[in-house]
């Protein structure tokens, strides 16, 4: 009983088979038509799409090209902007410079009463051209010799009326009936006569003579500041600069010179008559005897005379004995002849050392000033240094003559001693010679 429904079904199927086939055929045709339609549409869609795409691509390319050209354009424009901004800056700084030039010109030319228009709406170029022309004119005027009437101070402080000859803007001469000379700034644009004689130069300028060689002139920068008169440094002031050590050196020098004078007198007494005594004694000994020679030189004084007298008194004794006597006498006299000799040379050696000491103490004082006041004022320092050097100068001034004279006098003393010994020897020899004959 199982295949019954199945059978039923089969039967049913076969019943409807034709109907179904028709339906299917219909369906199929419909679907096929549909498919064709769709395929057609797809195709047309594709072509239209491709057309669109290529169109768009071309458009994009075009746009890209235009973008490139535009960016190039903008670069150029940027550069131009930069350039112009730089130019603007240059213009600005130029304007600053020119306005500062105008300001400078105004302040400089104001001193000579030449007006310069520095208002904002003025034409800068015109103003500057005018200022330059004015300056050139002023320069010519200032670099020439110009005569004016004016007042200036005399050295005693009184004012006088006279001719002022301006040599450019750096020097001036003043002439009145009684006074003529170079002018120096006295402060506040006024002049005063400088205290050094330059009247001939002033006259030469006044008469438009040829300018002489070595023209004396006082050159100044401006007339705002009063210049102090130059003081002639006197010898006393210079020596005073040396201080205590300077005076000590000078005292030593005076002492040394005194000793040399004393020594010269001593040596003159001792040795000036050596030749005379010797010739008299030689003559007397040759012609008569020793006793008469002793008589002949009795009036002579001094070291040589004493030595010769002692020789003549003992001339009859043995040779050795006489020589001992002569040597002893010369030794006795040499204490007098050599007196002060080495002391003067010691003074000559000490004086430069003392001078050096003075310089060192002066330098220490100068450095003390530096520690206290700093190195701001060179005048303060240079004054101290020049004072420090004064002692060295004094030391040398003392040492040089003492050394020269001391050495020469020592040489003289040595030669006196030598000639004394020699003349004694000579006399003894002559006496012996005569005795043998």
């Amino acid at each position, binding site marked *: 009983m199982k295949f019954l429904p199945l059978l039923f079904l089969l039967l049913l199927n076969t019943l409807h088979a034709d109907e179904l086939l028709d339906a299917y055929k219909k369906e199929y045709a419909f679907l096929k038509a549909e498919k064709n339609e769709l395929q057609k549409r797809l195709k047309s869609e594709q072509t239209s799409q491709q057309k669109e795409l290529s169109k768009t691509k071309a458009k994009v390319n075009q746009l890209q090209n235009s973008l490139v050209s535009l960016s190039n354009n903008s670069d150029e424009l940027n550069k131009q902007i930069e350039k112009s901004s730089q130019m603007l800056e240059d213009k600005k700084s130029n304007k600053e410079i020119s306005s500062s030039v105008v300001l400078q010109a105004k302040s400089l030319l104001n001193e000579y009463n030449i007006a310069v228009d520095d208002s904002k709406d003025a034409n800068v170029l015109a103003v500057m051209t005018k200022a330059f022309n004015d300056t050139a004119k002023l320069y010519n005027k200032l670099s020439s010799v110009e005569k004016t009437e004016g007042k200036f101070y005399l050295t005693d402080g009184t004012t006088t009326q006279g001719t002022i000859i301006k040599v450019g803007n750096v020097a001036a001469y003043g002439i009145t009936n009684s006074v003529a000379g*170079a002018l120096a700034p006295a402060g506040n644009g006024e002049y005063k006569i*400088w205290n*050094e004689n330059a009247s001939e130069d002033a006259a030469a300028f006044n008469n438009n003579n040829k300018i002489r060689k*070595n023209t*004396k*002139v*006082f*050159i100044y920068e401006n007339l705002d500041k009063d*210049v102090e008169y*130059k003081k002639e*440094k006197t010898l006393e002031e210079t020596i005073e600069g040396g201080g205590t050590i300077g005076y000590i050196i000078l005292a030593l020098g005076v002492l040394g010179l005194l000793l040399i004078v004393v020594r010269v007198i001593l040596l003159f007494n001792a040795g000036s008559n050596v030749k005379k005594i010797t010739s008299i004694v030689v003559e007397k000994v040759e012609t008569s005897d020793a006793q008469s020679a002793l008589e002949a030189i009795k009036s002579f004084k001094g070291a040589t005379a004493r030595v010769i007298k002692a020789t003549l008194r003992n001339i009859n004794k043995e*040779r050795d004995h006489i*020589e001992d006597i002569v040597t002893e006498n010369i030794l006795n006299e040499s204490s007098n002849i050599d007196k002060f000799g080495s002391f003067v040379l010691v003074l000559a050696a000490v004086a*430069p050392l003392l001078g050096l000491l003075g310089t060192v103490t002066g330098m220490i004082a100068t450095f003390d000033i530096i520690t206290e006041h700093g190195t701001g004022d*060179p*005048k303060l320092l*240079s*004054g101290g*240094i*020049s004072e420090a*050097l*004064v002692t*060295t*100068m004094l030391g*040398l*001034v003392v*040492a*040089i003559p003492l*050394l*020269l004279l001391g*050495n*020469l006098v*020592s*040489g003289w003393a040595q*030669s006196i001693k*030598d*000639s004394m010994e*020699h003349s004694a*020897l*000579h006399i*003894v*020899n002559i006496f*012996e*010679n005569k*005795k*043998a*004959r």
Partner: protein
Amino acid sequence: MLQELILYWNQFIHFMNAGGVIMWVLFFLNLALWYGLGFRYLTLKRGTKGNIRRLIQKHLDRGDKKVYVGILDYAVADALNAAEQAKQIGTTKPREFIYDALFPYSVMISQYSTLVKTIVVLAPLVGLLGTVVGMIETFDALQSSSMFSQGDSIAGGISKALFTTELGLVVAVPGLLLGKVLDKKEEKYILEFEQIADIISTKDKE
């Protein structure tokens, strides 16, 4: 030639004036120094050759026909004469007679030696003095900083300072060298005079 000389002369005057008064002091010291050196050179010139023994023997050999070429010849001749004289009177001390005869020669060879030595010592000191004076002038000029006169300027002081030191050394150094050479010669002469006296006085004893 003349123009060149004038140029040199002007340069010299300019140089001297740049250093001031002290340059002229040094210049005259220099003249004195070279006078002394020249004098010493001429007096110390030897002329003779060989040592003292041969010289004395030569003089003895020649007898009266003597030839004088240098200071030693004269000295030996005088010494021999003195020794002869001493022998004649029979003195016990011929040496004293020889010394007597040689004395003028020993004075001659030492002439101007003190002057030369003194100037050699003095010249650098004078140069130093010039330096110090120049420096004082420089610092004074710095202090007053006036432009009125040309003499007392800063540069003038410095050139004074340097030129004087230079000239001081230029004067001293040749004087020192030549002076030493001449001193050596003088020393040799003194020893030779001593030798003359020794030889002649001992010769007579034999």
